[in-house]
């Protein structure tokens, strides 16, 4: 359900980032009410998540940067940085 003047997006995260996202839809996913026009970076700041902990977003099979402006209902995976296999 949308808030008045707002929109809903869904953020997904695994590994360490999941602990910071506090998922509420399923194990990996959090429903977020936000304002249209905000970037992923701004939304992360609103959620109290340091954008430095997110390498990029991934939505509909493609990578998006943190300056991406989500659309209503968009599902975005937050990909954390990692080093070395």
């Amino acid at each position, binding site marked *: 359900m949308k808030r008045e003047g707002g929109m809903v997006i869904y953020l997904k995260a695994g*590994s360490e980032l999941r602990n910071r996202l506090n998922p509420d839809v399923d194990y*990996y996913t959090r429903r977020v009410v936000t304002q249209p026009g905000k970037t992923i970076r701004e939304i992360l700041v609103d959620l109290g998540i*340091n954008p430095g902990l997110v*390498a*990029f977003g991934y939505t509909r099979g493609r990578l998006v940067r943190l300056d991406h402006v989500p659309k209503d209902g968009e599902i975005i995976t937050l990909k954390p*940085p990692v080093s070395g*296999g």
Partner: protein
Amino acid sequence: MANGLAGTTLRIDLRNGEIKRFPTDESLYRNWHGGRGIIAKILYDEVPRDADPLGEENILILNAGIMSGSFIPAGSKVSFGSISPLTNGHGDSNMGGHLGPMLKFAGYDMVIFEGISPHPVYLYIDNEKVELRDASKYWGMKSLECEARLKKDLGEDFEIATIGPAGENGVLFSCITHDFGRQAGRTGQGAVMGSKKLKAIAIRGNRSLHVHDLKGLRKQVKGIIERTKVHPNMEPWQKYGTSFFMRWSNDNAVLPAYNFRTTYYPDVDKIDGDQLVEKCLITHKACFGCWMNCGKYTKAVIPGKPEVHLEGPEYETGSTCGSNLGMKDINHVAYINWLVDELGMDSMSSGGVIAFAMECFERGLITEKDLEGHTLKWGSVDDVEHFLDMVVNKRGIGEWFAQGTKRAAEKIGRGSEKFAMQVKGQELSGYDGRWAPGMLLSYMTADIGAHHNRSWTITVDIAEGREKVEGRAKIVVYLQHIRPLFDTWCICRLFWGELDITHEELVESLNYITGWGVSVEETLRISEKIWNLNRCHYIERNRANGRFFDYPPARSWEDKIPDGPGKGKGLTKEQIEKMLDEYYDARGWDRQGNPTREVLEDLGIGYAADNLEKLGFLGKPIPGGIPPVRGEKYKPKAF
């Protein structure tokens, strides 16, 4: 053997071609867990302290660990080890691909090479058949070229490891290559292999491995597969691998650019992962037992040069051979990646050495005359190609740079040591630690010289505050215990770091495979034991207090980051000293960085304390005693 081991260990005397077979000693594995652990123990016990790393007395070890070849996720790795010619201490480096599992399927857990062959040879293993074969016709070939030729001559089903001209010629940061782009890159294992006149290893095997509890292992792995299939990180990882972190590194002021002069690279989008996928990607590649397929098989196309095919560049090569060299086209980065792969050089050290030489050229410390009439300018692929030809053939000043940045700086002098970006002789990986104090401490204290895989703390630094150094040492110690465990077991770290497979689950897998019944805490103690033994070994060989070796180059504290998001940021020398003090305290070492008897005896390696004591480098007892647990797991702040 129903314990994950193949059952046989090979010892090969290259001087006379004698091949000995021994039953694999399970107790050695129980105490050291394979891979880098067993390598550490054998190197410590067998190699004389004054042995030349490129001489007769050094040994080269190939060890497939305890979990490689089982069907647990990414059980694909194999470790090479010897005294490193780059650092003059314990050296080990691992690679993915298929070589480790194939060694075990052929029936062998480990191969130890002794001595130097009188002529070029390669090791041929086809199940029971083990031979040293003449390699004269392969000597002089480049790495990928040699792998292709051996597959053509022996069969596509052989797994091959090769060295290139760099290893043959004693370039100290040479690597060992496998699977057309997987490298045991760090610590100069390729130089040791070359010094032994061992050009390649070719293995084919079709035997079974037996585990302690197949039913339990199968059930566990099935659960892991189901879970990881739907993990949010899986799909982006499969599609992009690590190459996409360039932009993130740039945004967060850790990307090395222009020989670590800055962390801001305005052209980062020209060499980032989306450029790689758009312009270079041919197909995805995976190692044995892995469905992440993080490897990217690519082509590099540059007008006037042949189209070349390679695996990569992944993040480390993309940064060290990209932004660090001022490259502005992903094809140029890929081409340099291919060059160093073919020559058989570690791409991280190569990037460090080239960048150091470029800065020396810019400052007039080396000239066109030194470079046979060529320049060595930022961003020039042609200049890099010519310079690497001088290095690999050790022509003129190429001889200096073939020994890595530390030794080259000693030759060049005139203040160049300040920006020779290495610790203990090994070049830094693709992260600048000036505004990531935990990362800098990780480089400073890594047991094999600067290397990101021993401990990687940048997200911890970001989360905990990048100006603050207090408390970081304990986390570095913890990471230095857990991350190298994967190189001990010979499995890939990514399922742990990326897909939430826990340390506890991996120890459960280990117990299903071996039947040992070990605990998580025990595995960490074994890793700590390996770390301490390597520290003692380093001090015993290099004969000074440990602290002496743990400093980064002076650029790390004298130069603040000049521009970009990290402008003006940097650590002071006092902060670096403080981090070292805290680190030694956390390890139970004295403030000179020397391990104490109490710690070494607690870990069951009191003999190393005896050896340090004889040399006068045993740590002084700690007032109040040593910490009962060394290292502290990072627990993110909740909010």
